[in-house]
């Protein structure tokens, strides 16, 4: 009895529910296209989800502070383009240096957001809407509108993301490390905990003495840093860089967070939620081409699935009324009404 109650309560948790939904979805797709359940297919799915996962976990921090970072995709494109240009101009540079440069550019761009939002207390959605256009435009200006194609990039540059270590791609390793770091950051550091406080009650956070401007500054910096890293990974993975890479990807990232139960109003959300939300979207995106549904249906189905996931989420989210009546009396009532 007690154990059952415990199990039910556990099942009602958002993360568990979402995990079950993902398994169910994979199963359903598998019924229609058994190939989807193959080892290589699933590992490809995992690899494919990594960029989204990484961006979603850092976006999660931003959303927790009641913010939003619409500029991630543009930032990704800009730092990706810069790393590609760098690699093509100086093919002998060590890869690590190029990755670091990409991350530094991303960080810098993120910190610009952070300064405007943290220190000037400007509304995040407006600031990042602005920098989103600016960064995207800069990709065009700095690249002269030209592509950087695969043969211009050094082989090592392209090969890195999909090379394997112990049978697992670098992308997955990196994402795993990022997820663990972010989980640690969220749960075990003053930085992470302060973000929850800021998101819960910004004014109260000030009263407590949480350095809100500094925290926001670095939160957007972190989001930018991750965009920079993903910028390199994206460009290397698809072996091409041009102005419009990852166009509109910011909404996918936000959708992943939202599906993962990160409260868009701030203050609540977990790393596991963000990861699961990203996996959920990745499963859909990878499954639709495989199940041979007309391509014209893809967008509509994605919309329906996002809305459904969000609605299921909302059910476990709904604020109930307060329990004032003494419980033993209620049980009596229940017995009365059931007989």
């Amino acid at each position: 009895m007690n154990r059952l109650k415990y199990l039910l309560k556990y099942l009602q948790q958002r993360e568990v529910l979402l995990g079950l939904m993902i398994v169910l979805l994979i199963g359903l797709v598998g019924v229609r296209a058994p190939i989807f359940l193959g080892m290589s297919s699933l590992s490809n799915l995992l690899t494919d989800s990594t960029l989204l996962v990484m961006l979603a976990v850092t976006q999660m921090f931003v959303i927790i502070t009641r913010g939003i970072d619409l500029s991630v995709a543009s930032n990704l494109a800009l730092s990706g383009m810069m790393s590609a240009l760098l690699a093509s101009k100086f093919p002998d540079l060590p890869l690590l240096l190029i990755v670091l440069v990409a991350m530094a550019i991303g960080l810098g761009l993120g910190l610009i957001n952070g300064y405007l939002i943290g220190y000037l207390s400007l509304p995040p959605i407006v600031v990042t809407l602005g920098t989103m256009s600016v960064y995207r435009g800069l990709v065009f200006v700095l690249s002269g509108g030209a592509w950087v194609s695969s043969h211009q990039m050094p082989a090592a540059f392209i090969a890195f993301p999909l090379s394997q270590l112990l049978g697992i791609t670098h992308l997955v390793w990196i994402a795993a490390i990022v997820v663990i770091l972010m989980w640690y950051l969220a749960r075990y550091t003053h930085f992470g905990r302060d973000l929850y406080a800021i998101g819960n009650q910004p004014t109260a956070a000030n009263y407590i003495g949480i350095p809100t401007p500094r925290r926001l500054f670095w939160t957007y910096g972190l989001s930018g840093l991750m965009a920079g890293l993903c910028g390199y990974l994206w460009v290397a993975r698809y072996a091409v860089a041009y102005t419009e890479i990852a166009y509109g990807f910011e909404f996918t990232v936000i959708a992943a967070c939202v599906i993962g139960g990160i409260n868009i109003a701030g203050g609540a959300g977990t790393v596991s939620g963000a990861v699961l939300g990203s996996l959920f979207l990745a499963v859909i995106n990878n499954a639709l081409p495989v199940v041979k549904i007309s391509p014209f249906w893809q967008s509509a189905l994605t919309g329906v699935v996002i809305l459904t996931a969000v609605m299921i989420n909302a059910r476990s989210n709904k604020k109930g009324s307060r329990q004032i009546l003494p419980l033993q009396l209620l049980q009596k009532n229940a017995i009365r009404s059931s007989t």
Partner: protein
Amino acid sequence: MLMTNEHNPFPIAPDGSLAPPILTLKGICKRFQGIVALHEVALNVRAGEVMALIGENGAGKSTMVKTLTGIYQPDSGSMHIAGKEVRFATPQQAMLAGVTAVHQETVMFDELTVAENIFIGRQPMHGFPARVNWPLMEAQAERLFTRLEVSLPVRAKVKDLSVAQRHFVEIARALSQDARVVIMDEPTASLSQREIQELYRIIRQLRAAGTAVIFISHKFDEIYAVADRYTVLRDGHFVAEGALADISEPDLVSLMVGRSIHQTFPKQEVAIGETLLEVKDFCHPTEFDNINFSLRQGEILGFYGLVGAGRSEVMQALFGLSSNVRGSVSLAGKILDIKSAKDAIAHGIAYVPEDRQHQGGHLTMSVQQNITLPILDRIGFLLGTRRNEETAISRHYSEQLELKASHLTQMIAELSGGNQQKVVLGKWLATKPKVIILDEPTKGIDIGSKAAVHRFISELVSTGLSVILVSSELPEVLGMSDRVIVMHQGHIKKVFDRAHATPESVVAAASGSDSLAVEMAEEIA
């Protein structure tokens, strides 16, 4: 009356020596866009004493608290702790210097646990790489509550706590950092009698341990019960300080408001008419059950209970704000179908909520826009052509409630807490209701205005209105009501006539009269 300089401002410390003040403020000024909130204010607090900070709404008490705790920086003046000049650029620095506060606004993080709310920003760390030591933090929180002799689940999320429980979390936070000066800005405003007693006990415990306590309250019985000395502010100016033992309550009041106030409850005898409102078999799945009562024309019906007894929930349901409610409400014999607040207003019911910040006011809207919001339909659809009427209505109620504001188009965020409450009250009076439900109408209101509110309530009933007065203040309920209904855990426990309502019997009913301790334990578990 005795002024500061006429008696010895330095009391003798418990060990017999003349203790120097631990905290001294001199010439503190603070201005907000032209408004002078504090002007040349001085304050002296010694270790081991409770200093009552007294003043009307908007006198500058909270501003002083925020200046002391580093949230605001003073424009001029100096601050000394144990003789050393200090300057707090951030709240953190104030905490490190041992100055902590329980603010008037709740400082709570709903999604975080009780333990974390206490230690937020300075959670204990351990290991390498350094990480938050959750078990230690929770253990420390447990220890803190044991010391305070309050029992609270430290791992519960704060959003699941009652208002009173939240308050104790805030108090625990202020005490968790070995503070030398603890400030409490109206800590009792939402506490019940029982919890106020707990608070007194904690304050005495602090005083015994040599902590200086600054205690802000509008209730004089509390001030006399717990404080040693007083400092009075009026309109941002320092007025007087001294020992409470040397001053009588009326003198203190006149110091505070600069004139004398009749404090007796101005209950006028009004002929009570027919039954106006009748509530039958009102129930809700989790909040209340089996609520039956009636309200007669010209009657003031008091609702008393411990905080969390469900009075507000019943009233909100009556006002059409809850779904899931069963039962019937009839007004003047006609059964009402109230589905929303709009219906309730249309039937002549008004509800003045208790939570000013969230339910009451529109902070960035003007006084005028706040007051006319529920009666917009009455003013007319095309408001643009009805400006004068709108102004006249809002002026009428602002003046009646002695609102302190510079103009009617001022945002109410710029008003002091008490004045915001007045705007909310004015808004509901403007609906010209038949039945007005006042949920803690004088919470956070200073004594002068409180008397005005009470006078107002009396005037209301004399014009034929009926009032439901929900209050956790026993004197107010007993002084104002014709009948008192006591609620306990979502039920009506007892109904008293004015004649039979004695403080003892009412409190006994409110606490469930029988095994109090057992229930308390259950409530928390």
